[in-house]
């Protein structure tokens, strides 16, 4: 059962809540004796987390319809924050990163750990069940895996790789939960004596 509403039409700029497919995350670029090596991870789906007001101002800064160029570059963004969407069934099996050689913890979806995830009560995850007319399976965003991509790269792939964008409220829900996850404070386990 869908738990979100989405819009199929993209804006003229990158927007918070935009979902793109096949987005690359550069792991490293190394050069050794004239040979260059690039390692990248291609994520099937990502959702944009950057604040929409920043994206809006960056878009206006770049696509100013007026002939007058901006007086300064204050609004320019270098990168966009995104988080991957994983196939929920893969997540429950703990196999969503199997192709990277990683075994993740499995989550039993019929028990409390899975049910709370799907009710968006586990801070690390955000469950998205898309409407039937959107060709994306139920997905889980893992906030721990956020990364940034360059604005130029995302702009380049945007026309071809845009899937849909989260409607208002659902987008804010995602953004607020991500902000809360990022702002958490890790407390030391005081039951364990320090060495």
């Amino acid at each position: 059962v869908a738990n979100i509403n989405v819009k199929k039409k993209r804006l003229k700029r990158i927007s918070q809540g935009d979902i793109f497919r096949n987005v690359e995350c550069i792991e490293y670029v190394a050069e050794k004796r004239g040979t260059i090596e690039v390692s990248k991870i291609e994520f099937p789906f990502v959702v944009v987390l950057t604040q929409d007001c920043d994206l809006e101002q960056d878009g206006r800064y770049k696509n100013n319809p007026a002939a007058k160029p901006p007086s300064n570059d204050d609004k320019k963004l270098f990168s966009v924050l995104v988080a991957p969407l994983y196939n929920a069934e893969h997540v429950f099996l703990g196999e969503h990163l199997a192709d990277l050689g990683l075994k993740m913890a499995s989550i039993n979806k019929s028990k409390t750990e899975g049910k709370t995830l799907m009710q968006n009560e586990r801070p690390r995850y955000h469950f998205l069940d898309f409407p039937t007319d959107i060709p994306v399976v139920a997905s889980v965003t893992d906030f721990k895996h956020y990364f940034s991509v360059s604005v130029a790269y995302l702009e380049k792939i945007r026309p071809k790789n845009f899937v849909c964008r989260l409607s208002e409220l659902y987008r804010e829900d995602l953004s607020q939960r991500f902000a809360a996850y990022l702002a958490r404070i890790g407390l030391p386990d005081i039951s364990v004596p320090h060495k």
Partner: protein
Amino acid sequence: MSNPRHLFSSEYTKGSVTSSEEAPTLQTGGFVKVPILTAEQQAANIPRIDTTRYGTGKPRRIIIRGRISGG
């Protein structure tokens, strides 16, 4: 200085791509056919992956190596 756009084209090192790059049929965002689960598998409550919609792919690593040409 050489044009960076040509960096990986003519000097591309074959065989340096990871095996995940060479996966034959599964293409992210594509539609794939999978065997229909047997009654035993269904009875075992194996989670069914919906392959009729996008999102069946998993993240994959791609490694590209190329020689820098020109100067």
